[in-house]
């Protein structure tokens, strides 16, 4: 298996990185490209940029952001938020993104995942799932759905998704640890890589989830102090997690 991955996540609204707790109370934490570069230099394995507002006007801004990121960074990055069609996804990949993450649009029309996989290859298609007490929520966690996270993950993979970005709304922003039960249930139900998201507070939390998932998404744990990524990698090594030597 490839090395377990550490993936800083940058939530972007109107071109700035923001962070809220439990999907609410957004505050400005910096410029996406500059922060991305800081993380890349500190040894990030990949980056995720999520457009949390995802309005129509933001879409071209987001393609422009993908272009700027590709110009400055030489590590893989995923973009998500507001991707509704294969054409949306294509313009982001052409700008230099490696993967697109789809969430609400795939819930509304699951065939989208197959269309994306056929056009871009499964390795470029990430299904983002936001779950609260095991149930999937859509539209950045604001709306309930009828779906269970485990069933939806399995269906999404069957339809062409090549990776799952699983966020526990219960754990998100709490820094009290990842939702190991949810992550485990989803990881057992699919054969594609799983990125666990929500709840990282300590290196131990990250080490625990990397026993189950192939990658850990990191957000609030880094936003106060981007240099934390470097020390985190060292602490993970001490805990026996074999992370990539980024030299």
């Amino acid at each position, binding site marked *: 298996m490839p090395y377990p991955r550490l993936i800083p996540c940058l939530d972007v609204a109107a071109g700035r990185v923001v962070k809220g707790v439990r999907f609410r109370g957004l505050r400005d934490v910096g410029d996406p490209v500059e922060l991305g570069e800081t993380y890349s230099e500190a040894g990030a394995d990949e980056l995720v940029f999520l457009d949390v507002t995802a309005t129509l006007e933001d879409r071209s801004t987001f393609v422009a952001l993908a272009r700027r990121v590709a110009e400055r960074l030489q590590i893989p990055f995923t973009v998500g938020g507001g991707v509704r069609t294969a054409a949306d996804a294509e313009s982001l990949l052409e700008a230099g993104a490696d993967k697109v993450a789809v969430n609400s649009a795939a819930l509304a029309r699951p065939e989208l995942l197959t269309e994306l996989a056929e056009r871009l290859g499964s390795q470029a298609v990430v299904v983002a799932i936001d779950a609260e007490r095991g149930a999937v929520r859509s539209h950045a966690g604001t709306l309930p759905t009828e779906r269970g996270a485990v069933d939806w993950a399995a269906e999404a993979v069957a339809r062409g998704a090549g990776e799952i970005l699983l966020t526990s709304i219960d754990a998100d922003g709490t820094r009290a640890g990842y939702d190991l039960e949810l992550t485990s249930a989803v990881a057992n139900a699919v*054969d594609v890589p799983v990125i666990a998201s929500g709840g990282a507070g300590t290196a131990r939390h990250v080490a625990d989830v990397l026993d189950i998932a192939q990658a850990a998404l990191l957000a609030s744990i880094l936003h106060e102090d981007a240099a934390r990524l470097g020390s985190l990698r060292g602490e993970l090594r001490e805990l026996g997690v074999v992370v990539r030597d*980024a030299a």
Partner: protein
Amino acid sequence: MRVAICHYGAGNVRSVELALSRLGATVVDDVEGADLAVLPGVGSARTALAGLKERGHDDALRERCAAGRPVLGICLGLQLALDGSDEDGGTEGLGLLEGRAVRITEGRVPRLGWAAVEPLGAAFYFAHSYACETPHATAWSEGVVAEARAGSFLGVQFHPEKSGAAGSRYLAEVLEEVRCPTPA
């Protein structure tokens, strides 16, 4: 150094262009005339091959290889260069080197992430669901063919353009080899 990238439709080709430009290469359109032709790796085998044929890149690449002129295949670009692939129910390849792309059966697929490559001595970024079976392998990663060479064709399964400093060093060496070929 003039480098041509074979476009064949959708996908992230821009990162390859940017990585080579950063190393001082001039990106040109002329696949036949460039010092190095790059076959990048995006999308699925069948779509990619159709796109290549539509643009006449298939013949241009075969002619380059026949004339001993350098071609670099990246990820799917390496797999397209083989005799064929099991992807999409079976597709024919360009036949630039012997071998076949087969579905990965171990671990989680797609195989996504950084993995060590030997004997290159560094970790590179991989993103693939199929892997090469070829007698021309020159480097491996966890049992997977990571690099293969046949004549003037060099192929890598990983994405050097997305592999940070190690990827830049690798591409710089490729450009250096094109500039000053070492006798085989």
